């Protein structure tokens, strides 16, 4: 598990910041969190709090924090700061703030929703439907999955829809990956995410089940490109 500083340790950092002359409140709490994060990152790599905090205090040895504050206030008071003057740094920074959203926007699905070990029991395309007893287009793939198998997001994205349609999909999730791609995971027994939540590729979003109209426990998986169901097997990686 990742380290989280306790109350006492946070207070210790807080008093350090105060001794450095950082008094502007909005910055104070932000720098406090920043330093705590720096220390926690170190601690996650096995460094003790004592060593990690010493390193950080070394990092802000002189007047860095006071200067940071003065620069912020000076910049805030600058009236002539116009859009045209956006420097490369500021532009880069703004880009960075959106990169995560953009990274999400650029990722088509690229892995199987069950990880490396999967078995397709029914492929995409026309097939004889075992329950309806007639030929029907299968718009996704079925992957063999004992009930309770973790189902993974196949790309970075945002949970778009969670629903339960007992007669068809059962419990299912739709993830939106970008303007073009969505993926759908159906016949789930349990859902571990909420609508609007960001997910990373490989993140568990639910557990497989047998919740809709199906003969054996499996995961039904669809890849939707520009609103059309395409063959998910193309997106199972190399």
């Amino acid at each position, binding site marked *: 598990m990742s380290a989280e500083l306790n109350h006492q340790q946070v207070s210790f950092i807080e008093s350090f910041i105060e001794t450095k002359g950082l008094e502007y409140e909005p910055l104070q709490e932000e720098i*406090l969190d920043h330093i705590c994060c720096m220390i926690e990152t170190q601690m996650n790599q096995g460094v003790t709090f004592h060593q990690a905090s010493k390193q950080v205090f070394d990092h802000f040895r002189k007047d860095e924090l006071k200067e940071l504050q003065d620069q912020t206030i000076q910049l805030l008071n600058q009236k002539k*700061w116009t859009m045209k003057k956006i420097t490369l740094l500021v532009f880069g920074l703004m880009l960075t703030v959106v990169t995560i959203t953009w990274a999400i926007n650029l990722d088509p699905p690229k892995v199987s929703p069950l990880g490396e070990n999967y078995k397709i029991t029914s492929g995409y395309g026309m097939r004889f439907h075992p329950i309806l007893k007639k030929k029907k287009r299968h718009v996704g793939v079925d992957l063999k999955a004992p009930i309770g198998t973790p189902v993974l997001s196949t790309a970075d994205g945002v949970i778009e829809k969670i629903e339960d349609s007992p007669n068809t999909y059962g419990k299912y999730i739709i993830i939106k990956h970008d303007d073009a791609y969505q993926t759908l995971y159906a016949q789930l027994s349990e859902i571990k995410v909420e609508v609007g939540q960001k997910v990373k590729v490989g993140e568990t979003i639910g557990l497989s089940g047998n919740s809709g109209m199906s003969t054996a426990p499996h995961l039904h998986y669809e890849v939707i490109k520009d609103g059309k169901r395409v063959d998910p097997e193309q997106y199972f990686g190399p």
Partner: protein
Amino acid sequence: MYGYEISQHVKSLSEGKLILTEGALYPTLHKLESEGLVQTEKVFFGKRARKYYSLTTAGNKAVSNKLEEFQEFVLAMQLILFPKQAH
């Protein structure tokens, strides 16, 4: 994204070559906020408060304007550097 996350992100995007110091990061973020280009949301846990930044509509527009300018610049450079490939 919050401040520390942004600094780490820049570092990892640039494979460690680019270090965004706190002194460059926070004043700029606060200025962008006061200009209405980014908005913030604060989450409290214990004694700590974490400020999450995201682009406002105006910020988004500014970025895409700048991107367009940048693309035009790249295109112009391509015309100069690779005149044969340009069409």
